[in-house]
């Protein structure tokens, strides 16, 4: 049990990223083992591609949560449109002329590009994500491959070659490297001295009872 109420919001968001990645990583490991076991009809390969891209979807959502927490606590500044895009919300006007927000996330390609640029800007040491190299091109290829096997039009669309899987692996490596850059450069300052003192002086029982989140061990 972890009492999140005693943690700062950015830490909470990072922990939610960790909890989500338990499931996503377990899927990655399982599906990779299925491909290695042998895959006569290609099902494991198709599952492999979908799981890898779903990892980037989930982690991007969780990283957006880290940024939003940083914005809410005043650590980082973002524009209103950026905040809405991070929430996956868009504005819409209904038939009666009233404005609404609707949940309509950007497509993965745009979302990842937007997110990484924002991550690069919000790091304590700002960096420019690498969209000009082979990694980004591999990521675009991986999305196309995932879309092809998820919405097939011919039997050939279902077939995945070794080259296809290599492109997906390269895309994953690129995605992990770019997000690692953000984490390495994000929270370098020591802003929480007062908070730490408050936590240290809190009674030992505080933080043990009013658990709000249950974290499962793997």
């Amino acid at each position, binding site marked *: *049990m*972890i009492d999140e109420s005693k943690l700062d919001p950015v830490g909470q968001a990072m*922990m939610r990223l960790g909890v989500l990645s338990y499931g996503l990583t377990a899927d990655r490991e399982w599906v990779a083992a299925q491909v290695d076991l042998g895959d006569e009809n290609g099902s494991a390969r198709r599952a492999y591609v979908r799981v890898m891209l779903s990892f980037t979807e989930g982690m991007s959502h969780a990283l957006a949560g880290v940024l939003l927490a940083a914005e809410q606590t005043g650590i980082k500044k973002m524009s209103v449109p950026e905040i809405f895009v991070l929430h996956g919300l868009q504005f819409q006007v209904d038939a009666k002329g009233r404005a609404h927000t609707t949940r309509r996330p950007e497509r993965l390609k745009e979302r990842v590009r937007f997110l990484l640029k924002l991550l690069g800007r919000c790091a304590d040491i700002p960096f420019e994500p690498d969209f000009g190299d082979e990694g980004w091109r591999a990521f675009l290829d991986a999305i196309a491959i995932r879309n092809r096997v998820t919405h097939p039009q011919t039997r050939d669309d279902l077939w995945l070659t070794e080259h296809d899987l290599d492109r997906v692996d390269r895309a994953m490596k690129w995605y992990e*490297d770019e997000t690692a850059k953000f*984490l390495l450069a994000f929270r370098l300052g020591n802003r929480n001295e007062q908070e730490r003192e408050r936590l240290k002086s809190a009674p030992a029982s505080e933080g043990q009872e009013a658990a709000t989140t249950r974290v499962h061990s*793997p």
Partner: protein
Amino acid sequence: MSRRAKARKAGVGSMPTGVTISIVEGDALTVNADVLALKYAQEHCGVGELVATSLGSKGLDRARMQPRPGGFRLVPSNSAIAAKSVLFVGVVDLYEFGYREIRDFARRVLVALAGASPETRHVATTVHGAGYGLDEFEAFEAEVAGFLDAIGSGDIPKSLEAITIVERNPGRVTRLRPVLAELYPPLTARETSSAPPEERNERLRAAGYASSAKSHVFVAMPFKKELDDTYHYGIQSVVRAAGFLCERADLSTFVGDVMQWVQQRIRTASLVIADLTDANPNVYLEVGYAWGSGVPVVLLVQSTDHLKFDVRGQRSLVYGSIRELEERLSAELKNLRQAGTF
């Protein structure tokens, strides 16, 4: 003067005892000893679970192997393992089993056998604490000190000749053997040494007891065999050289709510060092907890051909080799110390 009185007079660290203590690489289940001594942390885990399963296969009721904290059970092995008997010593839950408890466990092993099996000549046991993340040197010193407590007070089996600490990890045996030689030199070395063993005595007096007062660094990284060298030579040696205990959590070792232990060790850490290589979920979680608790974090990632990112001197490190990690982390800790970060 009785044997016990002589031992008391000699005192820990200077006692001319004939009992040998050694650490060897091997499997605790195959060691030919009179007694294999194991802890029972209110659940069987690790070697204890393997032994309990083996004894169970020979018809021994598991209830006979589950002492409460403070108690013990001495059961025959019925040839299920190489040792003739198994001593299960009841201790607190694993996440409360720290350095002080390790010292107490080791002492209680010999005290229990002094009464229940005085003919015991050879006791085998395992290394405690290091397997689930405590600082291996500190935990080992506490274990040896616990044995010497019992030897010093004479509360040992009257026939005791040897204590063998068995460890499967050869690297750990290599690292801990010199520690044992320093704390408890062979009898001939003790007798011929003219140097007063004051430093050794002080270490033995403090082992386990003073551990909670020492600052520690918590390392968040996967507990994989292939990362052992990175941890032991790239991180642990640097952290200890900087004067801290070095701990990490093996989440697979614990039963129950492991996060309770992790939470406590991170909250009380002076610093967290987290290796982001391979995007491990535990590491993200532990980094989040450290960030949320305001504990300073040094992040590491192993560089690949694709990752080109220079954050040197910024509380983050990209490293290529273990040697590079050792050098950079050492410099980083020095900088953080000078900056008053921890």
